[in-house]
């Protein structure tokens, strides 16, 4: 299948008065068209920043210092002076985390959806508004014609998130970035919203990047999983490879830190001790070194290479080096069978 997005060795820093803080440190990604890619990691891992790089809506002091982003499906138009780059990217759109603060409170929902169509697709106001009502129907908002005339405060959280989805798919994007789309919602509403995103993705064949910290959501939705830690990709592979044949100690740690819904409960959640590294003083070697129970001397000062474990399954961990075979067998053994 063709690539929707190729990122090569991307480095991003945010300037602060003293020095530049590295937020993304050498990201390599190749996202296939028509698939859902789950992007997981804890707060501060750089997942949202990666989403923003792709959309080119970076905060003012953020800078790409190295690397490139290519959209093979659609070449980038040049930047137009004085206009936001986002205006020229109708083929990429975003579902933000918090719908409450992402919508304009003084504009009705229908007009907010219509606006994207007017700007990017040259619709007249009347036809854009009519299309907005259809889109609201599509995301299963009842009485869409009435609802389109209402303001954000008249919508519940789940409905607002549906309206955001309607807005995101208005221009028929080829790449949809969903940044924690259901974190602010209850599980019952979360299930509704996620099923809707899956349906829309299947119908339109767009690629989706689903940014989340919930491994359960990824297990249900994603074809591929990308695990990020401290500004780096530490493991990438198909959802089954990453869940059932986890090959990075951080992925193993995340799984052990979640309660399992099985009958026989042995009460031993294994937290990951410590906290993520301070990127003001980025680690020289592996970002996970300080918290890793299997760290070796090598890991402290040498950044791990990317090791291929099977087709499409990669992990950045020295345990996969041929010389660490014996230890790797110990670490990754006892994993649940698929």
């Amino acid at each position, binding site marked *: 299948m063709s690539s929707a997005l190729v990122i090569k060795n991307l480095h991003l820093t945010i300037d602060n008065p003293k020095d530049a803080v590295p937020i993304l440190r050498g990201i390599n990604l190749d996202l296939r068209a028509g698939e859902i890619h789950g992007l997981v990691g804890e707060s501060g891992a750089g997942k949202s920043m990666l989403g923003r790089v792709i959309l080119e809506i970076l905060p003012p002091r953020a800078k790409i210092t190295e690397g490139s982003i290519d959209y093979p499906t659609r070449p980038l138009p040049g930047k137009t002076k004085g206009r936001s780059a986002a205006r020229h990217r109708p083929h990429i759109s975003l579902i933000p985390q918090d719908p409450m603060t992402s919508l304009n409170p003084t504009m009705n929902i229908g007009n907010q959806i219509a606006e994207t169509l007017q700007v990017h697709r040259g619709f007249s106001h009347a036809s854009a508004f009519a299309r907005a009502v259809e889109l609201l129907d599509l995301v299963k908002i009842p009485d869409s014609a009435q609802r389109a005339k209402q303001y954000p405060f008249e919508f519940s959280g789940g*409905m607002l998130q549906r309206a955001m989805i309607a807005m995101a798919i208005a221009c028929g994007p080829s790449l949809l970035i969903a940044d924690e789309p259901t974190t602010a919602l*209850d599980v019952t509403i979360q299930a509704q919203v996620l099923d809707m995103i899956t349906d829309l993705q299947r119908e339109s064949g767009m690629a989706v990047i689903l940014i989340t910290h919930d491994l359960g959501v990824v297990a*249900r939705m994603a074809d591929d999983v990308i695990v990020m830690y401290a500004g780096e990709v530490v493991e990438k592979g198909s959802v089954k490879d990453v869940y059932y044949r986890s090959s990075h100690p951080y992925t193993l740690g995340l799984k052990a830190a979640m*309660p399992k819904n099985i009958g026989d409960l042995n009460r031993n959640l294994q937290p990951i001790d410590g906290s993520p590294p301070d990127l003001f003083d980025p680690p020289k070697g592996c970002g996970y070194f300080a918290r890793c129970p299997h760290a070796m001397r090598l890991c402290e000062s040498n950044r791990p290479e990317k090791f291929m474990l099977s087709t499409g399954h990669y992990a950045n961990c020295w345990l996969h080096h041929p010389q660490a075979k014996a230890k790797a067998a110990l670490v990754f053994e006892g994993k649940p069978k698929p």
Partner: protein
Amino acid sequence: MSVLIEARSLTKHFRIGKTKTVHAVDDVSLCVEKKEILGLVGESGSGKSTFGKTLVGLHEKTSGDVLYKGETLPRKYRPRDFQRFATSIQMIFQDPYSSLNPRMTVGEIVGEGLRFHSQLTAEKIRESVAQWLIKVGLLPDHMSRYPHEFSGGQRQRIGVARALIMEPEFVVCDEPISALDVSVQAQVVNLLGELKASLGLTLLFIAHDLSMVRYVSDRMAVMYLGTLVEIGAADDVFFTPKHPYTSLLIASNPEPDPNSERKRASTIIKGEIPSAVNVKPGCRFADRCPKVMDICKTKSPVLNQIPQGKIDHLVACHLYE
């Protein structure tokens, strides 16, 4: 086992304007046994936080009683009542960012309770604070720092230390982990478990993460729109839920396992939790319930005993009458 704290028909209504009433908590009766962890789950708007706050006296009760060790607590707390119960009832708040005063140092925050409620000297209080910071996995040096210098997980630990330094018997934990990352959630949950074992704490653990509540709790209670719909042993409620709402809630809970997740039937629950303003008579779940009957729209169900296991399993649903 004996009952530590009991709510009897506890009700909390909020008035909005002259005509509207929010039925945040309606006629909820439950008891928490000594040294037990009772999990309380429900969607946002189900009244679980209001129940917790009303239980510890942060809200005035509209009606109903709270009995603590057999003693009826006042309907509205006066400053004197808060003083009296500070050493036995404490609360850990949901948001580790807004629940710590940014202008106080960690030492002041954690030690404040002791300064007011104990006869200890300043030096003894400092020692005690230092010990508690170690117990919750921080360093004594952190005492002179301010909350903004800490991460979310560390702040939540400060909140835990502040509540537990009083050595209370009963603690309400209002979503203590929902603002935290998965790896850190386990740290806080294990910490609560250890402290429960070493101090003999009794906890009301309010959360919306069903797997975590089942993991933490001995018993589990489910609230919907201000009413208690089901309560029983955590595993019974989780694996053999009786109330249609509980079944749907548990069916919506995502599991980190691709095989079982993908087999699960999709969209399971219709609509959204309705507003708690001026609720209709009958069962509050009737509009969304897949098993709704005529009686549900007119008569409110009451909690009934389900014959099952050793621990009482109660459910409020006409299907089981």
